[in-house]
């Protein structure tokens, strides 16, 4: 009996670690519950990457839901995230808007040429000013914004196929189902 005690304690520890791993996958530990969720996205008016003369405002985006993906050429995690966007963006059935954050336009375009461009439209926020209104901490981050311009979901950190399938797809489906 007493000889099995170490084993019992160890198994309890394993349970704790298993919980830790499970928790990490479930709850993004960095997830700061964004106060913006459920509120209208901040107003913005940003130039389009590669065509600075053209500007896009929040008002122009109303009417259809879209996924706003914050990325930058200097961001390593974005490089990891990029193949996921390349492979899955089409399938989601929602407009994917790039948000080029604190980046040199030439760098960003070279980066996209190298890794591919999954975005229908890319907004450039070179000095990161508008990003402050969005509460952007860094890159990558992703916002789901509905047709009324309300933020429905925010992801801090890289998207993975799992996050797309479990967190984003159901919400996208609800949006297009609820308000077609």
């Amino acid at each position, binding site marked *: 009996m007493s000889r099995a005690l170490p084993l019992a304690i160890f198994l309890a520890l394993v349970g704790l670690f298993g919980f830790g791993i499970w928790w990490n996958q479930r709850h993004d530990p960095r997830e*700061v519950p964004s*106060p913006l969720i459920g509120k209208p996205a901040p107003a913005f008016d940003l130039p389009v990457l590669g065509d600075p003369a053209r500007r896009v405002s929040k008002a122009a985006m109303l009417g259809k839901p879209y996924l706003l993906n914050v990325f930058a050429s200097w961001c*390593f*995690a974005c490089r990891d995230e990029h193949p996921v966007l390349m492979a899955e963006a089409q399938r989601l059935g929602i407009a994917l808007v790039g948000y080029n954050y*604190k980046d040199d336009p030439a760098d960003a375009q070279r980066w996209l040429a190298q890794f591919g461009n999954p975005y229908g439209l890319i907004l450039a926020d070179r000095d990161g000013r508008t990003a402050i209104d969005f509460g952007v*901490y860094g890159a*990558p981050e992703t916002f789901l914004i509905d047709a009324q311009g309300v933020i429905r979901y925010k992801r*801090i950190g890289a998207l993975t196929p799992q996050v797309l399938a479990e967190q984003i797809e159901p919400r996208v489906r609800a949006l297009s189902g609820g308000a077609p």
Partner: protein
Amino acid sequence: MNPTRKRRMTLVLLILGAVGVAAALTVYALQQNMNYLLTPSQVLAGQGAGYKTFRLGGMVKTGSVRRDAHSLTVDFTVTDGDHDLPVEYTGILPDLFRENQAVIATGHMDGARFVATEVLAKHDENYMPKELAAAMAKAHAKHHVGTPDPGPGTRQESAPAPSP
């Protein structure tokens, strides 16, 4: 058999007693030294009220850092995107302290401001503000570059180095 048994009983009792004392002291020490990590929103919602000291986590608001010209006192604002909290700190800021960059400050509330006794700048290999992006690559830092960690110090998680 009997004397052995008796001795064993004494030993077991002694060990049990020691375990009890140790457990009590451990619980006491844990309670004294537990640190909660709160965001400005949580603090403003009153969650920090119960603690003598706690850790405040968030981003340094751009343009908020003010150095006193004649001392080591710094004021800055920590934000979680929704609410802001003014922070005061006297001392030397870590190398990785930047505006628009995550920090964790340990300290207490003094009225409406948070007085920090320790400020740790935070970085993360997978999620980083621009200035640190290249730096951290996948290399894990050896101790303290200032990551806020469960630990006191501030090291970054991983030190490949001392990892087993």
